[in-house]
C-alpha cells in the first residue's frame, strides 16, 4: 500500500504534515547538518521583525517539569538581512518556507508582509500575534480578538501569499480570536504559542529568567494545545497547524485527530534533533498498520 501524507494548509502544499515551530529550528542550516531538510513538509523559520533585535538578557531559558520557559525576545537580524542571508540557503530545498513575523504596530506587520511578498522563495507568512516575550505588540495583539483581526487584515492587504495566524493560548477564548482572524482573511491558523509562565530561583530570590516572565513550551503544555485545536476546529473552517509539546508520532496523531491538518515540532527538536523525521516515519507506519490511505481521512476524526 502507498499512503498519502500530503496536506494543503491554506494553499501551502506540504508533502507531509510535519513542519517546525518558529524559533526552535533557526533558519534551517542549524539542523540541516543532522537531518535532511528536504524530508520536512515545510519549514517555519525564527520570528522576523522589520529591524534587527538584540533579544532579552540571559538567562533566556529555564527547564521546568516536562517543559521549558523561554524569553529569547525575538533576537533576529531584521527582515532585510533575513532575505539576503538566510533565505538563499533555503531556496536550495524543495519545501515551502514559512516566515514568522512580529511587529510593534499594525503598520509593522503590513510592511513586513509587503517585503516578504516581494522576496523570492517565501511560501507563506505566519503572523505571530502571540509572543509573550516582547514588550510591545506580540501577545497584546493576540489577546484581543479585534486587534488580532486588525493585524491579519493589514497583512492580508499586503500579500497574496498564504497567511497563517499564530494564536496564543493565553486568552479566555481562543475560538473567539480564531473567528476574528478568519473573518480578517487568514488562510490558516497555527496554535499554540507558548503559555505565559515564570520560575523563581529560591537561592537568589529572583526570577530565573532575565526577562522575568517567559513562554512555557514542551510536553507539559500538550493537553492545553490539543484542547485549543479541538475547540478551534469546531469554531472555524480553516486548516490548523497544531503544535505544543509534540515529541513523537503518537503526539502528532493526537493533534491531527483533534483537527489539525499539519503539526509543528518545537521544543522536541532540542531533545531529539531527529524528532521531525521520526514523526514523519512514525505517521507513515501508523497509517500502514491501520490501513489509512490518506492522512486527510483522520483529520478531526476524534471530534
Amino acid at each position, binding site marked *: 500500500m502507498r499512503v498519502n501524507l500530503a496536506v494543503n494548509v491554506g494553499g501551502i502544499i506540504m508533502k507531509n504534515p510535519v513542519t517546525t515551530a518558529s*524559533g*526552535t*529550528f*533557526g533558519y534551517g542550516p*542549524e*539542523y540541516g*547538518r*543532522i537531518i535532511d531538510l528536504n524530508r520536512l513538509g515545510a519549514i517555519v523559520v*525564527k520570528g522576523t521583525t522589520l529591524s534587527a533585535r*538584540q*533579544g532579552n538578557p*540571559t*538567562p*533566556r*531559558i*529555564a*527547564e521546568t*517539569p*516536562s*517543559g*521549558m520557559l*523561554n524569553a*529569547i525576545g525575538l*533576537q533576529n537580524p531584521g527582515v532585510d538581512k533575513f532575505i539576503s542571508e538566510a533565505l538563499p540557503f533555503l531556496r536550495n530545498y524543495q519545501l515551502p518556507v514559512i516566515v514568522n513575523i512580529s511587529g510593534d504596530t499594525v503598520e509593522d506587520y503590513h510592511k513586513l508582509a509587503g517585503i516578504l511578498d516581494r522576496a523570492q522563495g517565501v511560501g507563506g507568512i505566519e503572523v505571530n500575534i502571540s509572543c509573550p516575550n516582547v514588550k510591545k505588540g506580540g501577545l497584546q495583539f493576540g489577546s484581543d480578538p479585534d486587534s488580532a483581526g486588525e493585524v491579519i487584515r493589514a497583512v492580508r492587504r499586503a500579500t497574496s501569499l498564504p497567511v497563517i495566524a499564530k494564536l496564543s493560548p493565553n486568552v479566555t477564548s481562543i475560538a473567539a480570536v480564531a473567528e476574528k482572524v478568519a473573518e480578517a482573511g487568514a488562510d490558516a491558523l497555527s496554535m499554540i504559542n507558548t503559555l505565559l509562565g515564570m520560575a523563581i530561583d529560591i537561592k537568589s530570590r529572583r526570577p530565573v529568567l532575565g526577562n522575568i516572565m517567559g513562554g512555557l513550551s*514542551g*510536553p*507539559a503544555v500538550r493537553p492545553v494545545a490539543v484542547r485549543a485545536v479541538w475547540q478551534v476546529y469546531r469554531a472555524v473552517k480553516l486548516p490548523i497547524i497544531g503544535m505544543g509539546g509534540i*515529541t513523537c508520532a503518537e503526539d502528532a496523531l493526537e493533534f491531527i485527530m483533534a483537527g489539525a491538518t499539519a503539526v509543528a515540532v518545537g*521544543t522536541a*527538536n*532540542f*531533545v*531529539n*534533533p*531527529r524528532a521531525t523525521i521520526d514523526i514523519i516515519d512514525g505517521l507513515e507506519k501508523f497509517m500502514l498498520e491501520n490501513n489509512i490511505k490518506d492522512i486527510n481521512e483522520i483529520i478531526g476524526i476524534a471530534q
Partner: protein
Amino acid sequence: MIYCHKFRILKNEETIPGHRLMIVDAPGISAAAVPGQFLHLRCSDSTDPLLRRPVSIHRVERDKGLAHMLYRVAGRGTALLAGKMPGEYLDVMGPLGKGFTLPLPGERVAVVGGGIGAAPLFFLVEELIRECPPNNMVSFFLGAASASQLPPASVLHSPGLEVHTATDDGSAGYHGTVTALLESRIDSGPAGFDRIYACGPAPMLRSLVRMAGSLGIPGQVSLEERMGCGVGACLSCACKIKDRSADGFLYKHACTDGPVFDMREVYYES
C-alpha cells in the same frame, strides 16, 4: 558531522569527590573533536528532566575511539548521569561548538582552569603537547576550592609541561585564586606568556580577561550559558560580544559562535 545517537558507556566513576569521569565508546566523535568542543547529553528517557546537558570533551583517546567527560554532579541532570552504569547507552550529540585555536609556533602558553572549568583544558593541553612541541612551553594553572577538588594532572606529564596549582584554602599549591597565582608568576618570573587559554567560573574569567587585557596578552576563554538546542537554533545561550552598536555589544551564541571566544571580544559591563 554532528553525531547524535546512543553511545556505549565504558566507565563512569568518581574521581575527585562529587566529580565523575565518564568514558564513552565514540570513535567518530573522538576523531572529529577539537579541544574546547562539547557534547550535549540526554540524561533521561523521560520528559522530566527534559533538556540535554552540555558537557565538555575532557580528553579523547583517538587510537581507541574514546571520548572522556569529567563532570561535577551539580543538579538533577548530572545526578542522573552519575547513576548510569558501564554497559548502558547514553544519548550523545556532538561534537558541538568552536574549540580553541592553537598558538603560533614558539609562543609561551598559559592554560588556566578554575574548578570544573579545568575539564576541557586537559584535552587542550594534550593537543598542545602533541601539536606544538618542542617549540611551545605550556604552563597549566589549576585552581580549586581545596586539594581534594583538584583534578589530577598527572595524566598529562610531558617534558614541555609545567603544572601549577592553587587552592582557595591553601591545602595544596598556591594559597589563593588561580588568577592571583598566574599574576604572581607573571610578576615574579622573567618569562611572561604570549597566550592565555582559560575556562572557569564567570568571575574568574572576568578578572583574567581584565588582567590579560592590561598586560596585552592575547588569549581565549570558554564561556558557559544555559543551552537549549546546542546547535544555534534556539538562541538561548547568548553571550555578550563587543560591538560598535549603540549597546556596545551584540549577542553571540555559546553553542556555535563559542563556547570559546577571543578574550578581547568578550563584553563585560563596567
